[in-house]
Every structure is written in C-alpha cells, then in structure tokens.
C-alpha cells in the first residue's frame, strides 16, 4: 500500500492544502484558461510580465490534488523567470517538481498548469511532452 504514500507525499498535500499564489491580478498582461473537461479540472493563470520577465503569477481553478499542487508549485517556480525560461520548462521538469510517478489520466492533471501557462505565453496548445514524442523514426 505504498501507492498513496508515494503519490500524496507530503509536498503535494502541503501545496494542495496551502496553495501558493492562488488568486487573481488587478491588470494581468497575460491571462489564459484551460480545462481538462474529462476530469473537470479547470485552471486560469494570470501573469504580470515586464521586459520579458514574469513579475507576478496568480492562478485560480479547481480540480484534484495533483492539478492544484502542480499549479501551486509551478507558480512558485516561474516567478521572476523570463518567458524564454518558461518555454524551456518540460513535462519532466513538472514531474520532477511533483516528485511522483503517474499514470496516463493523472499525467494530464499534473500537466494542466504547465499546458495552460505555455498556451498563455506561446500559444502552444499541445500537452507538454508531446512535441518531443513526435517526429517519427
């Protein structure tokens, strides 16, 4: 019965129960909403950007602990970073932040925040990780 232990390791539960940067901004420069309707997870990201650097992040949404913790962790990670750095963030970075192994359904929960962020910043609407998977043999 290690599964839940591992999956809900303290870090995730902590972010879930005490989300960082949750809320909205007065006048965001970038706003993007996305959802994973299959789960009912919804997320809205708001950024204030100056000289290509993210000054402030706020997010709102609802969903499972993984999707909420991921949004919380990601928001901490990107504050103060440049948009170029955000573009570099990969699916593996997100999973590393979460520190868990996930099956295909919950992978989408884990990646919703990053997907929303990248869509808002770059209009990339694929699920993170898919760009890499493709390209053939």
């Amino acid at each position, binding site marked *: 019965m290690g*599964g839940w232990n591992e*999956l*809900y390791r303290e870090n995730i*539960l902590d972010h879930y129960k005490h989300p960082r940067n949750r809320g909205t901004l007065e006048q965001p420069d970038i706003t993007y909403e996305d959802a994973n*309707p299959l789960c*009912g997870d919804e997320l809205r990201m708001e950024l204030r950007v100056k000289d290509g650097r993210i000054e402030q992040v706020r997010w709102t949404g609802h969903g499972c*602990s993984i999707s909420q913790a991921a949004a919380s962790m990601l928001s901490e990670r990107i504050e103060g970073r440049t948009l170029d750095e955000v573009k570099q963030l990969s699916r593996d970075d997100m999973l590393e932040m979460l520190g868990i192994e996930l099956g295909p*359904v919950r992978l989408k*929960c884990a990646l919703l925040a990053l997907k929303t962020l990248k869509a808002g910043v770059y209009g990339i609407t694929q699920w993170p990780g898919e760009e890499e998977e493709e390209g053939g043999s």
Partner: protein
Amino acid sequence: MAQWTATAALPQPRPFDPRAVRQQFPIFRARREPPLVYLDSAATSQKPDAVLEAMNEYYSLYNANIHRGIYRIAEQATAAYEDARAHLARFLNAGSPREVIFTRNSTEALNLIAYSWGRANLRAGDAILLTEMEHHSNLVPWQILAAERQVELRFIPMTPEGELDLEPLPRLLGDGRVKLVSVVHVSNVLGTVNPVAEIVSAARAAGAVVVVDASQSVPHLPVDVRALGCDFLACTGHKMLGPTGIGALWGRRELLEAMPPFLGGGEMIREVKLTESKWNELPWKFEAGTMAIAEAVGLGAALLYLEGLGMDAVFAHDRELAAYALGRLREVPDLRLLGPPLERRGGVIAFELGDIHPHDVATVLDSHGVAVRAGHHCAMPLHRKLGVVASVRASFHCYSVPEEVDALVEGLHHARSVFG
C-alpha cells in the same frame, strides 16, 4: 424470459455462488498484492475462461475469412459467426437473426441508426427526444445529426434523485414533431432502471421510432426486445463478459429493410459495377468488410455463460450486492450517494466523498487494489444536472463479492484520513 421493469414483480431466480464464478475468471486467479478488487464492471466486464477459450479455439483451429470460403475451416468459421448472431437474437428474443447486426460496440450501433435511419428519415423541423441521463454515445450522434439537419433536440428531464420525470412526456411528444426517441435502459452512472416500456408506448403512440441504449441492461438483466416494444436496441459485448471489438444493433426488420446502407464494401453488397451497386440482404447489408469474427465467437460463449447463470440470477446478485454496498457506504462520514433508492436501481453506485476530488479518492483506492471509476463516466450533462463535477462509481457483475465492498469502504476511510 420475463422482462423486468421497475414496476414488475421480480421472478425468484436460482442463485449462483459468486465465489465459484469468480474462479472461472483468469484475472481473479492471477496473484497480486494487494489482490484485485474490481468494481468497474460498468466500464467493462471481466471475461471468463470460456470466452477466451472459444476465441483461442477459433484462432487455433478454424481461423478463416467468412461467407465466401469453400473450404472446411471457412465453413466452420462462417457457421460459428452466424451461430453467434442467432444466439444473440434468441438472447434478446428478437424475431429473427436477420434483425441482429454486429457492430464494434454500442456507440457504433447508435451511430448506425443516426447515419442510416436518421439521414433517410429526418427533415428540418423534426425533433429527437432524449433524456438528461444519456451516455455521450447516445447524445453526440444525435447532436451531429441535429446540427446537420436542423433537427431539434428535446430532453426528458431527470429528477435530483436521478430518475426520469415522465410527467412532461405528453407535452414533449404532443406536437407530433418528435420522430425518434432514444433512451438509456439502465443508467451507467446511477444504475437507475428506466421505465422503458412506458416511454416506448407513449412514443410509439405519438408516431416516433424508439431506440433503447441497452449497454448496461443487456449484460445484467433479462432484456426482451419484443416485450420492450422498441424499434432499435444497442448493446456492447465487452460489458457482457464478451471481448472488446464487438457489439450489436437489433432493429425491427421492416425498418432495417427500408434503410440505406451505412458503411460500403465487403459483404454488404450483392452486385458491384464500377459506378453502382446492389445491396445485400439483411443483416449483411450493414456489415462492411471483414467483421470481428473471433469476437463474435467470443460473444457467443459469453451468452452461453450468462445463460448458465441465468439473467434473473445475475440481476438478483447485482442488487443484493448493491443493497449491501449502500448500507456499508452509509457508514462512511461525508459520503453522498447519488441516484435512486435500491428498488429502482441495478448494480451501479455513484457517490461523492466530502470535497475530496474523485481522482484523489480513486488513487487512494487504487493503492488498496480497489478499481473504481472517477470522473463523469461519459455523462457530463447528467453530472451538470446533479450539480457535481465528477463522481466516484463502483459497479458489479456476477463475479463481485461482498468482501470487495468491504475493501472499498476501508479504502474510503483511508482517503478521508489522507485528505481530511
């Protein structure tokens, strides 16, 4: 075979021993730690040895393409495929095997009606009547058709308890514009057994053709298409102990005869010239290309297995377990049950656990080996109507045992302690 509806008296079935049944399913014999507690039979059922053996025998002894071969194994394969069709016709008490068309699943069966019957019969201004508790597979094909043909969609409303409210039915059917009614027999989320026969008689009196989505009923209770009185019925093999890749549409012969074909190619043709073709007779008119032969054989074996248990007994078993589960789930604090009272439901139970997201509940349960479904179960409008984003669903079949319910309840307590 008596048709069970919400109002009819239950026959006294001869019960079977679910523990013995369980041993005939290889997935439950496989050792694993924790053991598999499979409570997701509404998504797909497990398969008994008999089904796998029938398919292995087909592939190992008489695998051949059907209908055309003049050699022994092709004749065997053809006979086995057509026997499965005849068997399903008897299982549903259809008038003839010709009325049974094999499809990939229920979804394809419903789409077949929408494409073939729908496009031939519906005109702008007509209406289709559905219910608010449909599975997406009995919703989206009609939406596509409705958008293409300027047809109106209407809905029989659902009560907060998850039952159909038939009170507005006369009004919904009253203007004579409803040409087709399609309703789910047993809800895949709430387990509600709908009063289909009643809807059928109202709908047919109003001149509408009636489709029954029997995906969740045919696997679990006696279904008799003639007793139901409907015009079309869809069911799906993988939920009834059969393999994936096969399902069926039953339709009244006169309707099927009058319908244009759906997919073109292969067995559905009688004569082909370069620019025109003549269609084959029923049921082949609707079976294009090489069909799921092994899967039909497997489905036939599943029917035999279900008949051995007795569909009355299967349903009685499901309901007995549902009764036990409802009782035990009421012990769990903050658990909110969805759906109707026991008397009007089958072996499907959906619930919410406080404000813990169903995904999180399912993940904790998985660590206990308990497989349940979490989400909207392909019924978003139903969830929206009930005001919930998603739910946890436990569902049973003939191999389900009370200990599995106990494991579920234990896991739920655990989930509460993690997220509490």
